[in-house]
């Protein structure tokens, strides 16, 4: 990477001479697939989306009639937009900390095992390889409030389990449980970070009398803070777009009377676009989501600049 940078830094005055014309043309040819794709499926699509969000799109005729900001105003008039947004934010705030802590626990344990770690890593990773539909088809039964295995297990300890899939308060924890089962991706990132923490730091800390808990919070957490923030950002973005699990458990069947608390933003957007065919409204919803994700990510990055320890560079 550094080599490439070094050759790439020349100032503008010598630029014309610096580039070899044949080489430059070849370079553009190599990246041309991406340029075409970007122009059509990213930039083009975004522009198109903006136009649609400011119009009424007639699916039958394909006509687009401009309506100004009606769709955006409609976002604030439709109570389900606010409801689904609140559901989604609530879900993200619930899911992300659980995922981070659980993945960190798994990685921490694996990092301590020594021989046999490979085997357990495989065990923890298998759910991640399981297609989401298969996971959902299982959890639909496992989470059943009356006959499900989870509540039967809780009953062993005398705990009466909730109606996971029916009680509005337990809908989001249900999805969190499903997500935690497949948390191994996050775990692998933590594991890689943990292996990069220098052993010497622990040795010095142990000599100074720091116990395991103290070592964890004073050495491990700061040293892997980069991975923690990366995972928080990625998981938050994913949580704000949650669709598959919610659709499969609650909205698969259109006659199904699912609790309103399971209506996530991604699901409602999908319904508006591909069930109601109100593309203008759906496009406006998508832009609102984009702005929200951008803002949340920006705040998180700003915070990460304050808290994250970047080794070897002064950002």
């Amino acid at each position, binding site marked *: *990477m550094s080599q490439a940078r070094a050759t*790439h830094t020349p100032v503008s005055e010598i630029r014309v001479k*610096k580039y*070899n014309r044949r080489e*430059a043309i070849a*370079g553009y040819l*190599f*990246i041309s697939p*991406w340029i075409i*794709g970007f122009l*059509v*499926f*990213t930039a083009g*699509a*975004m522009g198109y989306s903006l136009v*649609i969000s400011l119009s009424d*799109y007639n699916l039958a005729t*394909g006509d687009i009639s401009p309506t100004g900001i009606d769709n955006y105003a409609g976002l604030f008039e439709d109570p389900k937009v606010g409801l689904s947004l609140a559901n989604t934010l609530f879900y993200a705030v619930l899911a992300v900390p659980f995922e981070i802590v659980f993945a960190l626990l798994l990685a921490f*344990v*694996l990092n301590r*095992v*020594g*021989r046999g*770690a*490979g085997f357990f890593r495989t065990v923890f*990773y*298998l*759910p991640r*390889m399981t*297609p*989401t*539909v298969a*996971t959902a088809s*299982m959890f639909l*039964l496992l989470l059943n409030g009356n*006959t499900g295995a989870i509540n039967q297990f809780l009953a062993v300890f005398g705990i009466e389990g909730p109606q996971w899939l029916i009680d509005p308060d337990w809908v989001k924890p249900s999805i969190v449980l499903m997500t935690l089962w497949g948390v191994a991706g996050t775990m692998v*990132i933590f594991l*890689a970070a943990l292996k*990069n923490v220098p052993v010497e730091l622990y040795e010095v800390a*142990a000599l100074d009398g720091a116990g395991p808990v103290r070592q964890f*919070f004073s050495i491990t957490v*700061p040293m892997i803070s980069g991975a923690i923030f990366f995972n928080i950002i*990625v998981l938050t*973005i994913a949580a*704000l777009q949650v*669709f598959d699990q919610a659709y*499969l458990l609650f909205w*698969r*069947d259109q*006659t199904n009377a699912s609790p309103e608390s399971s209506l996530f933003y991604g699901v409602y957007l999908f319904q508006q676009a*591909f069930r109601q065919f109100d593309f203008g409204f*759906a496009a406006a919803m*998508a832009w609102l*989501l*984009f702005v929200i*994700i*951008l803002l949340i990510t920006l705040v998180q990055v700003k915070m990460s600049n304050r808290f994250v*320890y970047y*080794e*070897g560079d002064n950002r």
Partner: protein
Amino acid sequence: MSASTSTGTSTGSSPEPSPNSGPIVGLPPALDEELAERPAARTERRFAGDGRYRRRRAVAKGVLWTLLAALSALFLYPFVWLVAASLKPRGEVFDNRLIPNTILPGNYAEVWNQLPLFSWILNSIVIALLAAALVSISSSLVAFGFAYFRFPGRGILFGLVLATMMLPGAVTMVPQYLIWKNLGLLGTILPLFAANLFGSAFYIFLQRQFFLGLPKELFEAARLDGASYFGLFRRIALPLSIPSFVIIFLFEFQASWNNLQGALIYLNAGSVDGFTVPLGIAYAMTTFSPSNGGQGDYQYVMVASVIVTIPMLLLFAFGQRYFIEGVATQARKG
């Protein structure tokens, strides 16, 4: 202890390379071996010659293995439960027994009559193979363009590649649907893989990192021998980048196999035979649901779930280190 997270910035420098500076996707130092060796060595060094730690160490080990056993049980239970449920008769699917009262291997024969599962699997395989092959080749081409050649605007364009990784799929979902509609390609499987012809941001990033790690002399020597630019790519860069190429292929294959939303958008209106695996099983979940008007033979959904999971487990059995390495690399792009 509570303030310690913020004191992290002053922990000082360390002799070890940071995750950002290491050779990316090197693969040869396999994570498996590292996992097995390093922590063990770490523990030994740490406690060597210090007798008073020995007892605490034994306790810690006990706690560790208990925790591992409990966690493994937690992760494996749903699999055992699923296989058991898939072997049960209709009336016993919900009984949570891990060893079925009545074992019906015949479910695995009957499922093909109950659901067009074969057709779904075939559709999914075709789409996943095309999606994976197209995206690994196109991303490699683009990555080579960014890694090897110098041209005006390269930095900005690569920045744009990285920026598209941040774009939520929802923003382009509707317009892309309308693009395919305008092209008259709705109802075909093309929308589910054709955009992969143009590369994908994360994979481009991954391959570019790999290409940048290759020694420049290789390419210079080949140039002197009269190799064309495309020859450099095909004869040197591509063969040497097989490890990261495989990562891309496997990742995309899995993503495609899992793609429910795409199938819902583009195939749901068509015939049931034309569904993919995720769409098909979602459909089966509704048709065979024990409530909401389903007919109740949920054991076939369980069988189908087992059958469509097996290819993914096989993929993992053969390509485990590629998956792990690929995931670990994601965090290094920052």
